[in-house]
């Protein structure tokens, strides 16, 4: 029942939030933060309860028939990947809620929408029924619109609309593809485990795979349909950026791993070349564009495009290392990018500008807040000691082995990502201290809490990558073995 509990916790918080009068904003924030803490605890429970060495691929399974005549069941369960992603969402949820402690505008609705988003994301990570998977997927996507359009900044309405339409266009590709899988199988069930046992004809798999891959790929920030993502990041408020880049984009990659690959292994094997090429474009091109951005958030936004490219590249290697690295990168990038946005948000909320050239020597005025950003930046450059290093390492190893050309290009992308990160650090955090920012307040212990949690996670997994890799090993092996 714990998986249901994970979905129900934010749901309960949502109802509670709707009941609390809007003026009582402290209570509303506390409810969300508390729900975040509870989900972290529950996710931790799942983590320990999950036995990576068991032969059962999906564990902690719950199943209730939902629409039996249509083969829909409320079917939850997690494999190692799901456990890791659930934990990621819980962490980002908690820290995101804490990061918005200073929010004053329309607090109640903000948290209501955020909780909706969180429910959707949890739902996707634990669903084993294709219908519910898609259901939660859509639930997760839509709240982004108001969250950006109301609480955002910088062309927020344009960004919100763009994001929604891109993502919905992705869903439009998914819709027919998922349904056709249901009918093609002839099993009259949306149970993904059962469906993955069915062998679809190779021609069919090859036909339908790109729909699903691209459909989910849009959300994963896949080149060339990533345009919504940086724009969205820039416009979104702090916690939304955190959830958006930290978790939501992972839904796309997760969808590919959970739906496209197990169900259509032959499709994956057929298409992995072209998609790996696109993923390489993601990595290199994203980094190059980031190099020319002056807005903090645009830099991070395009760095996310680049980093998600690593995830997609890893996935398309179809090897245990590649996919394991991709999954780990999903987790690591999620935490890292949450830290990024959290750090930027803190500065932006006070300075009201994000142009890196307007800053300078921030490390002098706000050393701790800067340290948070710098740490995230180091993590983004793939410096060892942080979780993302191992993830990238595995993906690169797999890529150089499997597709040397893409692998080498991707590794070279590391140089560019160092360039753009360092450029930001140099302009904004180093150099002569701009007296204009003398009055900036540095973080208090309370502000530091969410960021410190994120850093702790990054370092923990940076030093003991085995924690995560052992967890996902069997799942990834099963996944790669199926192809």
């Amino acid at each position, binding site marked *: 029942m714990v998986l249901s509990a994970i979905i129900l916790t934010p749901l309960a918080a949502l109802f509670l939030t709707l009941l609390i009068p809007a003026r009582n904003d402290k209570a509303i924030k506390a409810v969300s933060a508390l729900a975040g803490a509870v989900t972290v605890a529950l996710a931790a429970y799942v983590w320990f309860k999950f036995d990576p060495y068991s032969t059962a691929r999906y564990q902690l399974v719950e199943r209730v028939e939902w629409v039996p005549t249509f083969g829909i069941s409320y079917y939850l369960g997690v494999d190692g990947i799901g456990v890791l992603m659930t934990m990621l969402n819980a962490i980002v949820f908690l820290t995101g809620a804490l990061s918005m402690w200073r929010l004053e505008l329309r607090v109640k609705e903000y948290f209501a929408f955020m909780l909706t988003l969180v429910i959707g994301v949890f739902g996707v990570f634990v669903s084993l029924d294709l219908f519910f998977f898609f259901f939660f997927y859509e639930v997760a996507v839509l709240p982004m619109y108001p969250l950006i359009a109301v609480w955002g900044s910088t062309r927020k309405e344009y960004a919100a609309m*763009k994001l929604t*339409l*891109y993502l919905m266009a992705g869903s439009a590709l998914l819709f027919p593809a998922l349904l056709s899988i249901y009918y093609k199988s002839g099993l009259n069930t949306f149970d993904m485990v059962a469906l993955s046992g069915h062998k679809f004809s190779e021609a069919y798999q090859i036909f339908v795979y790109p729909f699903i891959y691209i459909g989910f790929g849009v959300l994963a920030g896949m080149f*060339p349909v*990533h*345009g*919504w993502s940086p*724009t969205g990041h820039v416009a979104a408020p702090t916690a939304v950026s955190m959830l958006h880049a930290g978790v939501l984009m992972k839904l796309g990659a997760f969808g590919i791993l959970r739906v496209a690959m197990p169900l259509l292994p032959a499709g994956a094997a057929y298409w992995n070349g072209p998609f790996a090429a696109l993923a390489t474009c993601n990595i290199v*091109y994203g980094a*190059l*564009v980031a*190099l*020319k*951005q002056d807005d903090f958030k645009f830099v991070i936004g395009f760095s996310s495009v680049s980093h998600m490219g690593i995830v997609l590249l890893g996935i398309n290697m179809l*090897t*245990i*290392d590649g996919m*394991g*690295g991709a999954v780990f990168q999903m987790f690591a990038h999620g935490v890292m990018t949450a830290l990024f946005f959290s750090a930027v948000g803190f500065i932006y909320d006070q300075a009201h500008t994000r142009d890196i050239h307007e800053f300078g*020597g921030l*490390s*002098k005025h706000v050393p701790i807040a800067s340290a948070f950003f710098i740490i995230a930046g*180091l993590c983004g450059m793939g*410096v*060892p*000691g942080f979780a993302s*290093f*191992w993830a990238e*390492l*595995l993906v*690169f*190893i*797999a890529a*150089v*082995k499997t597709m040397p050309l893409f*692998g*080498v290009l991707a*590794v*070279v992308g*590391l*140089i*560019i990502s*160092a*360039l753009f990160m*360092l*450029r930001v*650090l*140099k302009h904004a*955090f*180093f*150099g*002569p*201290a701009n007296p204009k920012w003398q009055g900036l307040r540095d973080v208090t212990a309370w502000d530091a809490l969410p960021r410190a949690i994120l850093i702790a996670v990054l370092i923990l997994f940076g030093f003991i*990558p*085995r924690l995560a*890799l*052992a967890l996902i*090993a069997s799942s990834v*092996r099963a996944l790669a073995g199926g192809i």
Partner: protein
Amino acid sequence: MSSGTLALLCTHAPLVGCFGALVVLRRAPRAAAALNILAMLASLGAALAIFAGSNHQPPTIISLWLSSEGVPISFGFLLDGTNQLMGIIVALIALCIQVYSLGYMKGDPGYARYFGLHGLFAWAMLSFVYSANLLQAFVFWELVGLASFLLIGFWFEKPSAAAAAKKAFVMTRIGDVGMFIGLILLLSSTSTLDIAQLMQASTLASIPDARLTLIALLLFCGVVGKSAQFPLHTWLPDAMEGPTPVSALLHSATMVAAGVFLYARFHPLFVAAEGVSNIVLVIAIITAILAATIAMVQRDMKRVLAYSSISQLAFMLLGLGAGSLYAGVFHLTTHAFFKALLFLCAGAYIHQIGSNDMVTMGRQGAAKLRLVSAGLVIGAAALAGLPPLAGFFSKESILAALHGAHANAFVYGAYLASFLTAYYTFRMVFLVLRPSDKSVLPAEEHEPHPHGDVTGSMKLPIAILTVGAAAAGFAGDFIAKLIGAKALHPTYGEMAPAIGIALAGVIVAFFEFGRKDAAQQGFITRVGALDTLFERKYYLDEIYDKVAGGLVSLIASVSAVVERGVLDGTGDLAGNLTIATGDATARMQSGRLQLYIGSAVLLIVVFCYFVGGY
């Protein structure tokens, strides 16, 4: 304690110091410094203890670290002679320099941070040295780079420091990327990255020749980046923007030596790889001469030393490339001592006088610092390769190795570099210690601003290193035994030309700079073109900036334009087109009833035709 525990202590004690200084003791800088020095002491003690007890323990201690199916990466310590030696050197020099920093960094607002970063560096460097696994080594290699980045940018408010830090990181990363790819190729060729295992002849023999060469070249890229060899050397002189003790520790004695150390570590591989050693030698000889020529015309003392480091690192590679592990490692050891010493002396002058400019130092009475000046002379003599100081022996063995193995071109090149080394070193000594009234060198534009007096805590390390620089040359046999390589003992006859050349360099320097009333004008100024070429560092910075930087910037700009114009543009265009179509569609609702009915009827007729089958 078992040697495993000792290794753990040795490598990780500084991490405790780092954490303590950066997180816990941010507001107690003195305690932070003390903590780090204690940690370094512990490291040194542990390193020595490992050395002392090494006969009773297995050389490698392994535990599984990262495990993915195709990438079983173990974390462990390889405690063989080479590592023991390097560990002791690193710990000792780091300790000296931390003690030195107590005085040098006094009053700096970032005192605690400084020591914390030192701890970070020491942790990374020591862990790198003792790594049992190439990937583990790579991890710490990168962390060493990170620590270097943070320390170069320590005075981050100086734009030049921020720029130098960035440059260092990027340039070394270019090399690292090559090394990383090499590492992956190695892994996929042998399915192991265990260093001890890799170095076995059978493992190496199992790799196809062409691939082995490729791997060796890629690994060498990492060496080139980290040890600042041509063409990736330009970051090192800029790295002098960091505090001087940092330059002493990282950018001369230990960190930049990591590249050479790696080469030494993988010596069997480089030897086995066909054709690589020639490339190495060419690069090394180019670097040695290039750096030495630039050092001839510098006025900034730290820059002279920086170029000298580049040149000396190239010497080490010459030795290694010539096939002599002993020569390279030996020079690495001696260089660590005398170069650290020289930097600390430079730091003392800078501290006392407040300027990096050698001419200014001389005119402000640098010679009055007796102990420091003594250290400078000894260090310089060692660097120039004058007997019986440390550098003499190690350089001789490199030359001997070159003689033994390779074509004469390299030998003559090395002679040239030695001559230049002696020349620029003593140019430096004379500029600093023997200011001349007749000097044609103009005074520096801005006034020096001294930091304070040279304290006891600064003098002590100088004294220790002076002894080291003087005596380390006699440890050759010991080192050979430790690393298990054959020592080279050149005869005096073989040594004669080198000694002569070094002396010649010193003498030329004396006549031009050291004589009473010397004009202090180098012979190179007579060849204006060369002078300018050296002065401008062969225009390499400009070329890189224009060509590589410009190219990347161009591609990035194009990408950004593509993003805005093409990709975003397409999206927006699709949206706008849709909306425009919507307007047009809505206009079909013309308001004219008969058109409505007419079009409906028309369609019905069409459909009738269709279903009626007529």
